[in-house]
C-alpha cells in the first residue's frame, strides 16, 4: 500500500530528471570536447559556480526584479479580473469592447517598454511594474471574460428554476466555470511579468536590478556572469509559475487533472 504513491512519484519525476541530467551532461561534454569559446556558451559547471560566487550581487538583484514582476503581475491580473467582471456583467458593452481587447492583445506591447521608462522614472520600480502589469492585463482579462461567458446554458437554467438571482448565478455557476480559464491565463501572465520586468530594465533601470546586471555583464563580455543572471531569472520565473500551478491545484480541486483521491 505504502509503495504505490512512491511509485507514482518516481514515475512523475524520473523522466524530467533524466532529461535534465542528459541535457546538462551533453552541454558540458560538448562545450569541453569542441572547445566552444565561453562567450558563445559557457559550461554549466562554470555557470553554476558563478551563480554561487556572485550570489551577493545576483540574488539580491533577482529579488529586486522579482518584486517588480510580482507587483506588475498582481496589479495587471487584478485589473484584468476586475475588467472582465465589469465587462461580463454588461453583455452589450462586452460584445462591443471585445474586438478592442482582441486587437490590443495582438499589439507587441514590449515595443512600448521605453515609453513606460519615460512616463515613470526609469530608476524607480514603478516603470517596470507598469510594463509587467500591461503585459499581464490583456490575457487575464480576455480569458477570464471567456470563462465567465462559457457557463453551460442548462446549468444556468437550473439555477433559474431555483429562483436564483443573477448575483447568485454569477457566484455559484459563472465564477467556478471561469476559474480554470483564469488559472490558464495566470500561468501565462506569471511568465510574462518576469519577461516584462527584464525587458523594461533593458531600457534603463536601477543598478541593482537583474536585467541591468545581465546587460552590463554581457556588454563587458562577462558571459558566464550573464548566464548566471539568466539562470536566476529563469528560476524566479519558474518559481512564480509553479506558485500559480500549486494555487490552481488547491482551488480547482474538482477537475479530473487534479486527481485527488
Amino acid at each position, binding site marked *: 500500500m505504502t509503495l504505490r504513491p512512491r511509485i507514482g512519484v518516481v514515475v512523475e519525476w524520473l523522466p524530467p530528471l533524466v532529461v535534465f541530467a542528459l541535457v546538462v551532461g551533453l552541454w558540458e561534454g560538448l562545450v569541453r570536447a569542441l572547445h566552444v569559446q565561453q562567450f558563445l556558451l559557457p559550461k554549466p559547471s562554470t555557470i553554476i559556480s558563478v551563480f554561487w560566487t556572485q550570489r551577493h550581487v545576483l540574488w539580491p538583484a533577482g529579488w529586486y526584479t522579482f518584486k517588480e514582476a510580482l507587483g506588475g503581475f498582481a496589479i495587471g491580473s487584478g485589473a484584468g479580473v476586475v475588467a472582465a467582471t465589469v465587462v461580463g456583467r454588461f453583455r452589450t458593452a462586452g460584445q462591443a469592447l471585445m474586438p478592442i481587447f482582441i486587437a490590443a492583445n495582438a499589439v507587441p506591447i514590449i515595443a512600448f517598454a521605453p515609453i513606460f521608462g519615460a512616463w515613470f522614472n526609469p530608476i524607480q520600480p514603478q516603470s517596470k511594474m507598469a510594463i509587467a502589469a500591461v503585459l499581464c492585463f490583456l490575457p487575464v482579462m480576455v480569458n477570464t471574460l471567456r470563462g465567465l461567458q462559457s457557463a*453551460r446554458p*442548462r*446549468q444556468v*437554467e*437550473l439555477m*433559474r*428554476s*431555483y*429562483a*436564483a438571482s443573477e448575483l*447568485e448565478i454569477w457566484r*455559484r*455557476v459563472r465564477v*467556478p466555470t471561469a*476559474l480554470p480559464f483564469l488559472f490558464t491565463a495566470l500561468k501565462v501572465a506569471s511568465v510574462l511579468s518576469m519577461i516584462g520586468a527584464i525587458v523594461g530594465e533593458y531600457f534603463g533601470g536601477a543598478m541593482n536590478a537583474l536585467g541591468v546586471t545581465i546587460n552590463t555583464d554581457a556588454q563587458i563580455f562577462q558571459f558566464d556572469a550573464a548566464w548566471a543572471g539568466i539562470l536566476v531569472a529563469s528560476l524566479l520565473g519558474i518559481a512564480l509559475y509553479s506558485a500559480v500551478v500549486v494555487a490552481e491545484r488547491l482551488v*480547482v480541486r*474538482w*477537475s*479530473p487533472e487534479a486527481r485527488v483521491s
Partner: protein
Amino acid sequence: MSDGTATPAVVRVEGVTKTFPRGNVTALENIELEVAPREFVSLIGPSGCGKSTLLRVIGDLIEPTAGTVRVNGKSARQARRDGGYGIVFQEAVLYDWRSIAKNIALPLEMLGWSRRRRRERVAEMLELVELTSFADHHPWQLSGGMQQRVAIARALSFEPSLLLMDEPFGALDEMTRERLNLELLSIWEQTGNSVVFVTHSISEAVFLSSRVVVMSPRPGRIAGFVEIDLPHPRTVETREAPRFFELVTEVRELLRRRGEHLLPEEEAVLE
C-alpha cells in the same frame, strides 16, 4: 389553493404557442393542459414534438410566444420565484465543481436550510438513489446513469409541490428504472405533489400516471388524453394486469393514429 379559484389546478396551460425564431420552428401550437393537485401526468410523443419545450415553458425557463401558464394559481414567473417546482432535465445537469452530496444540497442551500437538515436530507436522498458511497465524488467520476440519479435526488430533495421530469429514467438500466418507478410512486403518494413526466416508454407512462397526454409533432400539439384508471398502490403485479395491457394498447393506438410511421419505441431506438 389558498386563493380560492374555481378549479385549483396546479398547472394551467392556456393556448400556449412557442415558435423558435432560429430556424422558425413551431415547437408548440395552441396547447391546453391542466394538471390537478395530486395528479401524475405523463407526456408522450415522438422525438421533437415539443415535450421538453412544454416542460420548460411550464417552468418559466423560456417564455411562450402566445398563451398563458399559471402554476399554483400564480403566474409561472411568480411560482418559479417562490420555489414552486423541482426539475430534472433530459440530461443530468450537474455542477462539476461540487461533490455529489453538494450537488444534491444545492436547492436546499438556496432555500436556506440549516446545515444539519441539509446533511440529513442529502443522506436520505443518496440512500434512495443508492449512491451513498459516492457522496464525496465529483460528477466526472460517475457514469451517465449515476449522474442522472443524482439529478433526480436533487429534484426530489426539497419536496416541491410540482415535479417536472424530462425522461429522467431514460439512461438507466431496466432494473433500476423499475425500482425508481416504484420509489417515485411512493414518494408521490406520500408527499401529495403533482408530477409532469416526459417519457418515451408507453408502459412506463401507463404504469406511473393518472393521465397520459399524447402529443403529435410538427407543430407540437396534444393529440389526446388517456385516463389511467389502474388502482393504487401500483405494484409489480400492476404490470401484469389485463387492464394495464388494454391501456398500453390504447396509448399506442392514439400515437399511431396521428399519422406517425414509426412507433415511439422505434423512434427512441433511432435516436
